């Protein structure tokens, strides 16, 4: 019962963080980036701590986290990250090579 309460608590925190980051701080890019990374890190850490003693849950957790990351790739693709990567990767950055 305690574990279920923990899980519900974590889910609530994640939802709140989501709205806080993507709704409230939408206009402050640096805070949004930092909080996005921090929330993911915190979520992974606490979920990992919670699940470390339960092998099946731990395994499921890894698959869920993998799915979240893959969703991140797909979402990034929808936002145009692939095209942006292709565009910037197709030009020779001379200043990066020290030729300027």
């Amino acid at each position: 019962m305690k574990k279920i309460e923990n899980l519900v608590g974590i889910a609530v925190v994640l939802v709140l963080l989501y709205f806080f980051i993507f709704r409230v701080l939408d206009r402050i890019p640096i805070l949004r980036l930092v909080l996005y990374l921090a929330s993911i890190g915190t979520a992974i850490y606490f979920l990992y701590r919670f699940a470390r003693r339960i092998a099946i849950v731990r395994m499921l957790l890894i698959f869920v986290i993998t799915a979240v990351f893959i969703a991140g790739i797909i979402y990034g693709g929808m936002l145009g990250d692939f095209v942006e990567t292709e565009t910037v990767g197709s030009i020779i950055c001379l200043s990066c090579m020290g030729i300027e």
Partner: protein
Amino acid sequence: MSLKRIVQIIATIIQNSYIPALFSGGIYQGILKRYCTPILNCWGCPLAVTSCPMGALQHFIGLKLIPFYIAGFFGAIGIIIGRMSCGWLCPFGFLQDLLYKAKSVKMILPQWCSYIKYGVLIGVAGIIAYVTTEPWFCKLCPDGALIAGIPLVLADSSGDLKALIGWHFYMKIAILIVVLLLSLSIKRFFCRTFCPIGAIYSVFNNFSLLQMKIDKEKCIECESCQMVCPMHVPIWRSPKNIDCIRCLDCVKICPTKAINHGPR
């Protein structure tokens, strides 16, 4: 030749297989550049067919955008295999492996040096790239100097690029020379101390799906695994070490077969 070496050679060739660049100059500009390799491989290299994830990450950071694609990419690779791609796919790591085989004075890197790469990741590839909007790790990257900077200058028949060479180019070359020289004496010097991609993957080593496992009953603490490890990781003591690149050399060398690997 070991399976790891064969995979390293094939990976190096596949990632740098744009042969037309040898004849026509320039770099590959096709659709494959949308996709990143899971390791450090400069996208400015004339032969590179895919993008460098660290260059792409800094580009998005410089644009003040959340790098969903790159963060998801690093996370997905890291959570499944940890740093395994460093051991099996990275051409620069492969080069360092070969350099260390040369006869030279051998040195052991202090453990604290392993934490420098987090500073490089957060400081150079993160904060400085954000503030200056320029990919500052790329500007210092020895891999970029080796596979992109030098070939581009050598292939420049018109002399235009050579005329533009300044102190920055020579600084990159100097960094490259120092890294290569230290790699003769220290196992995978760059991977252990400065590689920001290794820093990202190493965070996942502790809870990735693929794990190294030690049978404490069988282990005789001979440390032969640490001796053969390309990262000099005391795997018998800490199988989840941040520097373990899951190359599996230790599995092969263990005299009592105490080291194993597999899903957690």
